Structure formats: structure tokens, C-alpha cells
């Protein structure tokens, strides 16, 4: 009965964090502990409901075919000559959204718990929790949206929270800049998404996902293939920025200026995958347009490789993780682009666990080292911070793709579907990315946790509120992948697009090769960074390929390119418009003004400035109109009045 209740009241899940947000903002703000309690409590309750709802969905196969949708009428818009557009607010529960609902609320709960320890003593403690709650609320709203407009609202709310949380340390200039950057970048892309949504509305006349998917399937009744292509690409622009795809990925690494739990929650586990989720949700649209699919796949693959090459040279721990995130998001996009919702979502699912784990681990390290971020300055932390280190290592194994950790299965799934789809170049890129991933991630681990201890550091293990999430997530990173092993692919039975995957033959070759690639990457990292105590080889390599190294270290100068573009193009055109404005527009306006001024001088006498005088005349006018309307009839009156006007 409780499951039933949860299923039919899934809107409670976003509502509870939203309530927590309101309560904290309006009532509990002066009492940090109370705020944290409300926030975590709200989140935990939401997680409870989400778990129930997910349980409800995953025990009932009917929802895979027919999502559970219930909605309330919000607006009815009607324009003359067009069919009435009804906009609903509602909940759509199918396995995909149920999985997301569970994942987001679960991870958010633990990250909030983690934040209790991490943010202790911060002056903005309560505010931070209110933001986290608001974020969770909007993300969950996004997940359960049954409707594109609702989803877009949540999408923007999520962006707002991201902005608030990145800029949380608003006393730091870099944080403020990063927040602005994230906001602006996302806005640029959201414009595309908004256009796409509008286009969909105009074309198909509905915003409900279910209805839309039905109509899209028969899109030729409504529109042409060209339009569809355009729409698909427009819709894809939104996820490009939100999920940090090339070339709009630039905000994501900078977003690490926010507190670490934020990085973990937003920029690794939940918000950034919103784009992937959106693409997954809209896969029925992309599916109709092969060009768009290819675009998605290529963007994903390129982003994955591109980000991985940057990550190998970065020095800051969170930055490495950030580029790794970008890279993994590229993986997911790749999977979606080759048409496998299963693989994409599966990677998203596993990635959420191990990446959140790694970010939290990084946060724990930073917390212990008083925010010293450079991995070269760490070392040997495993002795002082065993829990953090070992959980981090688990995360590293998972992301590198060592069986049987979670990342292996999902990554393997992606590689397999890429290969099966016949995208060999993409496969090669993905495989190489996998190698790089293992390399840079273990580079990080070897540098930070092993090797010699640095005497100037005095690390210590973090409090229990920080350790418990780490352990739980580590357990997750070890096990959640088992849902989707090729032998018993429960995952694919539930989450798929089109036809359900049948766990048929096992692609042993791909599986073994990806494991080997991972091991190779780790071994390379081991030789370069752990065995070689003086790091001679590394330095020599960097010296030898200095230009390449610099290119990678400076992130291919993409930020600089954007800057240059802004400076030259935008400023130049602005100058041009300025001149036009000064001479042409102002000239006209001033000329008219001069005329007005002269005539005004003449009429000035009539103006007494006294309100009651005006009112008097005004009422005389009203009387005149009334008399006119009655005695001369309304049409004459309007004629006369029209003349006066």
C-alpha cells in the first residue's frame, strides 16, 4: 500500500526538498544544525519515497511499455486558428525516470550527509543546505517531468542552483567568475533548447513526452525531414552545454570552484547528466534523424577523447576529476548516439556512483590538507587517511574499468554497442580514451595517495558524516555494475529504447580487450609515477613533447579562443552599432524632439501641474463621451473619438 502511495504521489519526492528549502530560507536559517537536519531529513524522506516508487516501477513490467503518467492541467493556451495547446504539470514514471529518481535522491542524500561534515563552521552553512535542497528538488522535478515545458523549467532551475552553488564562496573572485561562466555558457545553449522545444510545440502541438513520442514516430504527417533534423539539432544544443560536451564544456572544469560536495553532486553525479538524460528521453526524436544521431555520437566520442587528453596533464585534483567527468559524459553521449539507451543510462548509473565517490574522496583530501589542491604536493595519504584512500582506489578501479567493478561493465557495454553498430573509428577513439582514463586516474591515485609522504602536510581522517557516504558509495561503485553484466543483464530488460536487449552472446573479445586496455593504462601510470620515484621519465617526456604538453595543459587554448572571439568580433560590431546609433538613430530622434519641444512651448500654458485641475477636465471629457455615446450612438461616438485620437 505504501508502494502504491509512493507511486501515485511521486511528486512528493521533489516537493519534500523544495519544502526543506522554503523552511530553511524562511525559518530555520539562523540555526545551522536545524537547517542541516531539515535538509538531510527532507532528502532522506524523499529518497525513501523515491526508493519505494522505484521499487514499484521495477516490480511491474507494464510501466516499461506504458509509463505511469498523471498530470494536472496547468494552462490552456489557444490562439485563433490554431488547435488549443494544453500544458500539463505532471509525473511520468517509467524505468528510466524511476532509476534516475532513485539515483539522484540516493546520491543527494549521502552528499548532503557528507556536507554536514564538510561545511561545518562555514558562515553560510544554512544557506548552503537550502541551495542543496533546492537543487535536489529541481533535479528531481526534471527527472519526473512528464512534459517538456516542465522539464525545461526544472532544467533552468537546475542551472540556477548550479550558478548559486558554484559561486557559493562568493568572496573568491574565481568562484564568482566561474559561476558567471557556467551560467552564461548554459544560457547560450538553453536558447537552442528553448527554440527546439518551441519548434516541437509548433510542429506537433503537444509537450507531453508520451504524446510527443507517438506523434514523432509518425512525423511525416506533421512536417518534413529537414525540419526534424533542425529540431533534433536544436534540442541537442541544450545538452551540449549542460553535459559539458565539446565545445561548450569550458564551464565544467571551472565549476570546481564550488564546494566539493557541490562538485560531486552537481558536476559529477546529477546535474551534468541531465543533458544525457534529456537526450535519452528524446531519443525517439533523434532516432528519426540519423544525422542527429551521428552528431551526438561523434560529439560524444570526440569529447571523451579530447577531455581525456587534457586530464593527463592537469595538476589540481578536482580539475582532473572534472575533465574525467567531461570525458565520461562523452562516453554516455557516444552510447546514446549509437542508439543504445541501455548503455548510456547504464554508464550514467555507474558513473554517478564512482564519480560521486571520487569527488567526495577528493573533498575529504582537500578538507584534510586545508584546500591544497595540487596532486604533486600530496603523497602517501593512504597511511593517514585509510578510509578515504581505499574508497578512492575503489573508485579508481571502477572508472578505469577493472572487472568486476561497476565501470567495467558499463564501459564494456558502450564499447560493445559501438562495435556492434559498426562505428569502428568511434570504437577506436573510445578504446583509446579508456586507456587514457585508466592512465590519468591512476596517475592521480599514485601521486596523491601513494609514494612519499610530504612532511609539510598533516592530513587526518575526516569525520564520520564524511566517511559514511564514502563507504556507502564505494560499496555502490563495487556492486552496482553487476546489474548489467552480459550474463544476466537485468538492466537491459528494463531500460531500453526500441527493442529490449536480449542478453545473447557474450562479446568476450571486447570484454577482454577493454580489461587489458585498463590494466595497461594503470601499469603505465605505475611505471611513470610510482615506480619512478624521481619522476625523471615524466619530466623528460613533458620536456620532449613540450608543445603537446602545453597544448594539453592549457586545455587546447579553448578559453582563450572564446575570449579572442568576444574581444574582436563582438566589440567590433558593437562599435559599428554605436556609430549608427549616434548619428542615424539619435539624429532622427533629436529632430523629432526639437519639433516636439517647440510645439510643447506653445502648449505649456495649458499645464497647471495641479492634479485636481486635470481631474476636472478629465471628468468633463468622460461626461462628453458618455453623452455622445448615448445620444449619438456608439458608432458615431467612436468615429468622433477616433478623429480626436
Amino acid at each position, binding site marked *: 500500500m505504501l508502494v502504491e*502511495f509512493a507511486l501515485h*504521489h511521486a511528486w512528493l519526492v521533489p516537493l519534500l526538498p523544495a519544502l526543506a528549502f522554503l523552511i530553511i530560507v*524562511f*525559518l530555520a536559517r539562523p540555526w545551522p544544525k536545524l537547517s542541516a537536519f531539515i535538509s538531510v531529513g527532507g532528502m532522506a524522506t524523499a529518497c525513501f519515497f523515491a526508493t519505494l516508487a522505484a521499487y514499484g516501477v521495477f516490480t511491474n513490467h507494464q510501466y516499461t511499455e506504458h509509463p505511469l503518467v498523471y498530470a494536472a492541467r496547468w494552462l490552456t493556451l489557444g490562439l485563433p486558428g490554431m488547435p488549443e495547446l494544453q500544458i500539463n504539470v505532471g509525473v511520468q514514471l517509467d524505468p528510466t525516470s524511476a532509476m534516475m529518481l532513485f539515483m539522484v535522491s540516493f546520491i543527494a542524500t549521502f552528499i548532503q550527509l557528507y556536507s554536514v561534515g564538510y561545511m561545518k563552521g562555514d558562515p553560510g552553512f544554512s544557506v548552503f543546505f537550502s541551495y542543496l535542497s533546492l537543487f535536489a528538488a529541481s533535479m528531481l522535478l526534471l527527472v519526473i517531468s512528464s512534459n517538456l515545458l516542465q522539464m525545461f523549467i526544472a532544467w533552468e532551475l537546475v542551472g540556477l542552483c548550479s550558478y548559486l552553488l558554484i559561486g557559493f564562496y562568493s568572496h573568491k573572485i574565481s568562484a564568482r567568475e566561474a559561476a558567471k561562466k557556467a551560467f552564461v555558457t548554459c544560457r547560450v545553449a538553453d536558447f537552442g533548447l528553448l527554440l527546439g522545444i518551441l519548434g516541437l510545440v509548433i510542429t506537433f502541438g503537444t509537450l507531453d513526452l508520451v504524446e510527443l513520442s507517438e506523434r514523432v514516430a509518425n512525423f511525416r504527417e506533421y512536417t518534413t525531414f529537414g525540419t526534424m533534423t533542425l529540431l533534433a539539432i536544436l534540442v541537442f544544443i541544450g545538452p551540449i552545454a549542460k553535459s559539458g560536451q565539446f565545445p561548450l564544456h569550458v564551464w565544467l572544469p571551472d565549476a570546481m570552484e564550488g564546494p566539493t560536495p557541490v562538485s560531486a553532486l552537481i558536476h559529477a553525479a546529477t546535474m551534468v547528466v541531465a543533458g544525457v538524460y534529456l537526450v535519452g528521453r528524446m531519443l525517439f526524436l533523434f532516432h528519426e534523424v540519423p544525422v542527429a544521431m551521428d552528431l551526438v555520437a561523434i560529439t560524444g566520442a570526440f569529447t571523451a577523447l579530447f577531455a581525456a587528453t587534457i586530464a593527463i596533464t592537469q595538476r589540481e585534483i578536482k580539475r582532473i576529476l572534472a575533465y574525467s567527468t567531461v570525458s565520461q559524459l562523452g562516453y554516455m553521449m557516444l552510447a546514446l548516439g549509437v542508439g543504445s539507451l541501455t548503455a548510456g543510462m547504464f554508464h550514467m548509473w555507474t558513473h554517478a556512483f564512482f564519480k560521486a565517490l571520487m569527488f567526495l574522496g577528493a573533498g575529504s583530501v582537500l578538507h584534510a590538507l586545508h584546500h591544497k589542491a595540487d596532486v604533486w604536493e600530496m603523497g602517501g595519504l593512504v597511511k593517514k587517511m585509510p578510509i578515504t584512500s581505499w574508497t578512492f582506489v575503489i573508485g579508481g578501479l571502477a572508472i578505469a574499468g577493472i572487472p568486476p567493478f561497476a565501470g567495467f561493465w558499463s564501459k564494456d557495454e558502450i564499447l560493445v554497442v559501438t562495435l556492434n553498430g559498426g562505428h569502428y573509428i568511434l570504437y577506436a577513439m573510445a578504446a583509446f580514451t579508456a586507456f587514457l582514463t585508466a592512465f590519468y586516474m591512476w596517475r592521480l591515485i599514485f601521486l596523491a595517495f601513494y609514494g612519499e609522504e610530504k612532511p609539510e602536510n598533516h592530513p587526518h581522517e575526516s569525520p564520520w558524516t564524511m566517511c559514511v557516504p564514502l563507504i556507502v558509495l564505494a560499496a555502490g561503485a563495487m556492486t552496482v555494475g553487476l546489474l548489467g553484466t552480459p550474463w544476466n543483464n537485468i538492466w537491459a530488460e528494463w531500460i531500453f529504447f526500441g527493442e529490449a536487449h536480449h542478453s545473447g552472446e557474450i562479446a568476450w573479445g571486447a570484454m577482454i580487450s577493454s580489461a587489458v586496455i585498463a590494466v595497461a593504462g594503470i601499469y603505465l601510470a605505475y611505471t611513470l609515477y610510482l615506480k619512478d620515484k624521481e619522476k625523471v621519465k615524466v619530466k623528460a617526456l613533458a620536456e620532449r613533447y613540450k608543445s603537446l604538453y602545453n597544448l594539453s595543459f592549457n586545455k587546447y587554448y579553448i578559453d582563450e579562443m572564446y575570449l579572442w572571439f568576444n574581444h574582436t568580433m563582438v566589440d567590433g560590431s558593437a562599435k559599428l552599432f554605436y556609430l549608427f546609433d549616434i548619428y542615424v538613430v539619435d539624429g532622427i530622434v533629436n529632430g523629432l524632439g526639437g519639433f516636439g519641444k517647440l510645439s510643447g512651448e506653445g502648449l505649456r500654458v495649458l499645464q497647471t501641474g495641479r492634479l485636481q485641475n486635470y481631474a476636472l477636465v478629465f471628468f468633463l471629457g468622460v461626461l462628453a463621451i458618455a453623452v455622445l455615446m448615448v445620444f449619438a450612438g456608439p458608432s458615431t461616438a467612436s468615429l468622433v473619438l477616433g478623429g480626436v485620437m
Partner: protein
Amino acid sequence: MLENLFTNIAGLLRNLLDSAGVPPLWNDVTLLVVKLVAILVFILINALWLVLMERKVAGYMQARIGPNRVGPWGLLQTTCDIGKLISKEIPIPKSADKILFLLAPALVFVPPLMIFAAIPFGKDMVALDLNIGLFYVFALASLTTIIFWMGGWGSNNKYSLLGSMRVVAQMVSYELPMILSVLGVIMLVGSMNLTEIIAAQQNMWFIVTQPIAFLIFFIAAVAECNRTPFDLVEGESEIINGPYTEYGGMGFAMFFLAEYASIMIISAMATTIFLGGWLAPFGLTFIPSWLWFFLKMYVLIFVVMWFRWTFPRIRVDQLMGFGWKILVPLSLANVFVTGIGMYIYRAIGW
């Protein structure tokens, strides 16, 4: 027998008039007038008695015994006081606004009288059973503000002016949480009829289901009738006596008695809305319903007095802050929580 004492009297009167051949409409009007007069007399006598009760309570709480000279246990004390006050001259300050100055004490009893007409004192004992009874009560209660203000302004005294400014500010800002707190009850009952509100408490008093609302209502009500700790209006150590500073004789007495009348009103209201009105608890129906009503009312009156003789007075900015920053959000939250609770209650359907 006792239970229907008053209804029987009313019925008797009606029959008497009927048999005398009075047309039914006039009959109604006569009865209404009789009821109203009875209420007026009741309020006045009760207010007199409450003054004595206040003095007794104060005395007892201060290790004294209070008035005990006039009549047995001092029962006639206030009567004598009123007699004295009536016989005194009402001094009118030279620069006072005479119309307002004299009108204010004359009008001050009108709103309480009209409010009491709508309160059910017992089973079938209500002079005016209004559909929007609760709202009617609040509407009339808000009128008192003007009257107090008239007195303060008319006195043309700076202390009075300050006092009347405080009256207006305080009453306006505490009316809001008071009404909002009752909203929860209205939601639960689905009606603003006081009789129905009482009937809805047959099983459980609303003080159980709406404890926060009761608290807010009671605090705001205490503030509404300017009692300690919210007696800034007449805070004698600050602004002497506020709006009544210049009043003497019967003018003062009217204000004084009106204060007790308003205490009675808020206690009666709280009883009706939250304490089950005339309903007998634990099935103790052998005590007549109207007696229950008065019992509950007097308990609340005693609590109000108890407050007065325990608490210091809060400051004017704290008063405003408390009203706007704590009570109003709290009452809004209460409405919200009540709504959610009702929804869940219905959704789960216990």
C-alpha cells in the same frame, strides 16, 4: 432542567407573545431585543465582576488578598468603584477634540456587544446564528481600534498620541496572525459558522489537532486586547496610561470595563474555536452546556490574568517583530501544514 433553562425562558416568552396576539415578525424582533439586552447586561455585570476577579487574582499572586472590605469578600468593591466614578466629573482638556473625546468611551462597548450576539453560549443559545460568524467576529473586533484611537487622539496629549499610535499598530498587526491561525480550523470544519465549528469538535477539540493555531490565536488575542505582556498601549511606566491618560470618571471606567469585555470576548472565542465551546468533555453532560462554556471561558480569563501578573511588558519594536516575524509566518506555516495534513489524511484514508 438546568440545561435548557435559558431556551425555556425564551420559549416561554415567545409563547407569551404569541398568545398575546403579537405578529410573528414583531415577536422575533422583540425576542432579539430581549436577547441583546440580556447580553448587554451580562457583559456589564461580568466586566464588573472581572475587575474584581483581576484584583483578587493579582492580590493572591502577590501574597496579598485583594479587596475584601465592601460586601462579603469584597464582592461589591467594583460596584462601589463604579458608583464613585459615575458621580465624578469627567474633566475635558481644554485643547481636546471634544467630539472624539466624548464619543470614544460612549462607543467602546458597541463592538463587544455586537460580537457577543454571535457567540453560542450553550446549546441553542445564540442570538444571531450567522453563516459567517467567525468572520463577523473578526470584522467587528477590528472596529475597536478606531474607538481606542479616537480616545487617544481626542485627548490631544503626547502620551495619548503615542498610545493611540501603538494601539493602531498593535491591533492591525496582530489581527493578521489571529485570523490566519483560525484559518486552519476553518479548513478542517469547512464552515465559518460558530455552531458548526463547535459541532465539529464533538470528538476532539481543536486544541488537540491545532495546538499551534491555538497558541498563536491566544497570543495574538492577548495582544489584541492589550494585556500584559503586550500592554504597551497603556504601559504605565512608559506612556502613563496611553489613550486613557486624560480620562477621568466614567470615561475612564468605560475604557476600563471595555478591556474586560474584550478579554471575555477573546476567551469566549478561544473557547468556541479551540476548546469545544459548550461541549461537555468526557461525557460530563449532567453539567449544563452553558455552564461548561462559562467554565472554560473563565479558565482562559484566569490564564490571561495569570499572564498579566507574571510577565513584564515587551518593547514596541519587539512587539512588532514578534508579530510579523514569528507569528505571521508561523500561522501561515500552520495553514500550510494543515492543508498537507488534510490531503495526506484523505489520500491515505485512514
